[in-house]
């Protein structure tokens, strides 16, 4: 009532929840695509979580609970921005990716060493950032944060089937984009691909890149 005893409660909360700050910040960064917004989002998440910490059931998954609050906070703020509302929906054209086989370039890549990883990191992040938000979040929760399908379904408030579908399509989009990147950077030849993927000669890729640049 008077905030008495709140110090102990706060210490308890900080000890349990603050270790997830890094993960939440990274997710926030991918969602907002802006460090300053990500900080605000993470801060809002922690304040909300703290205020309703008594509603969290001890022994259950605190990380998932925090991610759910983060996601909801983001969506609520996000939905206020009508300009961006449309991108919440899934573009119909993306559905076509479902039917497209994956480019098979990864099989030809050497295991990523440290430098390659650093080179790739920015591109991977950029590729994730370009995904529609639902796909972005799903891929992030599964492939980076290692949540289970059920946990993702709970966090994003959708059926497990939707999680699987978003994951599948999100990965396809990533593969397509990163394939182009790998070719441009010379990590692999354009010929190293799966049957059915778009065949683009390396010279054509360079021309496209230079034309854009």
């Amino acid at each position: 009532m008077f905030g008495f005893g709140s110090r102990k409660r706060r210490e308890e909360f900080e000890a349990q929840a603050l270790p997830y700050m890094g993960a939440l910040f990274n997710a926030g960064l991918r969602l907002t695509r802006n460090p300053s917004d990500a900080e605000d989002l993470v801060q809002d998440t922690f304040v909300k979580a703290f205020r309703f910490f008594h509603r969290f059931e001890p022994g259950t998954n605190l990380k998932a609970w925090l991610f759910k609050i983060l996601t909801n906070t983001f969506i609520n703020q996000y939905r206020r921005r009508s300009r961006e509302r449309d991108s919440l929906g899934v573009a119909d054209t993306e559905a076509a990716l479902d039917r497209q086989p994956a480019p098979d370039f990864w099989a030809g890549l050497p295991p990523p060493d440290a430098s390659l990883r650093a080179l790739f990191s920015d591109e991977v992040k950029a590729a994730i950032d370009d995904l529609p938000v639902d796909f972005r979040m799903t891929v992030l929760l599964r492939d980076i944060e290692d949540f289970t399908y059920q946990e993702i379904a709970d966090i994003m408030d959708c059926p497990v089937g939707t999680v699987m579908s978003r994951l599948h399509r999100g990965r396809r989009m990533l593969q397509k984009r990163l394939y182009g990147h790998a070719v441009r950077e010379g990590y692999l030849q354009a010929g190293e691909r799966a049957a059915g993927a778009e065949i683009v000669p390396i010279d054509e890729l360079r021309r496209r890149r230079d034309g854009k640049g």
Partner: protein
Amino acid sequence: MDCRELQDLLQLFLDGEIDERDRGEVEGHLSECCACRRQAEFERRFRETLRCSFVADPPPPRLCERIRAELGRAAAPRWHLQSLAPAVPVAAVLLVGMLLGYIWSLTGFAPFGDESAPRSQARAEIPPAAPQAVSPPGPTPPPAAPAVAKTASIARAPEIAQEDSEREARPPRVARAKKAAPPAVEEEKAEAAGEQELPVEVASSDPSEIAAYLRERLGRWVRVPTFHGRARLVGGTASSEARKAQLVYRYGDQHITLHVSAKADSSLPAQGIVVRPEGAHRVARWRLGGLTFSMTSLLDPAEMVRLVSDELRVQNEAEALARARRRAEEEAFTRWLSPPEPNYSEATTVSRSAP
């Protein structure tokens, strides 16, 4: 299992979400089919590369501090400082004050000193939101040592010696207590005169400053009553070992000392004010929010009760408001986080082995 069936299960298999029976079948097919094995290997490497290539951005160091500070603010009962500061509309305060004064003058009720005042009448004086019972004095209790005398052990802060009208504008000055003990008798005499300054560690008329200081000393928030600005805050002193705080107010040419104790005195009614004489002083005591307040002054008892009941009414209203707001927020949060509260039990987590 044929290649098409494998396509349906490959994602579950690689994500470690497949059940044991299907896993055996998928593994069986992969050991036989080169094309599917190649695809599975590609998908597996893609996941691995994605995970390995993703270098997490470290959160800025200030974020942790920001969050801690916000949590500190969230932990503090926000309505304390907000509701007790100038948020109370002046007009309402005046109206209540006038109304109370009017009732007082009509009934001639004096909760202390007038043994004939009936209890029922005493109750009628308190507005509905205020405590339900004012205890009229029973048989005069044996005069205890005046609570104010305890302050004698704390040296007078020199800055406070000349309290003046500029105090509002001055930043608080902290004078550490020295253990100089003037003779208690002298002290009592001085206070009986109601003129001398009482010792304070922090001189400030700003409740939020005093609250922050007390919090630092006592490790917890202490509500700092403002008595609607009728009594002017002079300063505060905290005694860390006893988990008590003492606030000093100026009321006209009188001083009011308010002791706040972290212990709830169970001998006091849950709601109500008990006024008793202690030596030359009157001590009004009440409980609120797990704290015991004890106000010592030379004021007329009726005036003390009026001051306190007004303050309590405002506090109770603020508290009720805060409770209602909190309830509404909780309901909103539940709605926001639902439908139905997900069960994140670890037990439901499907065990995942590396693909």
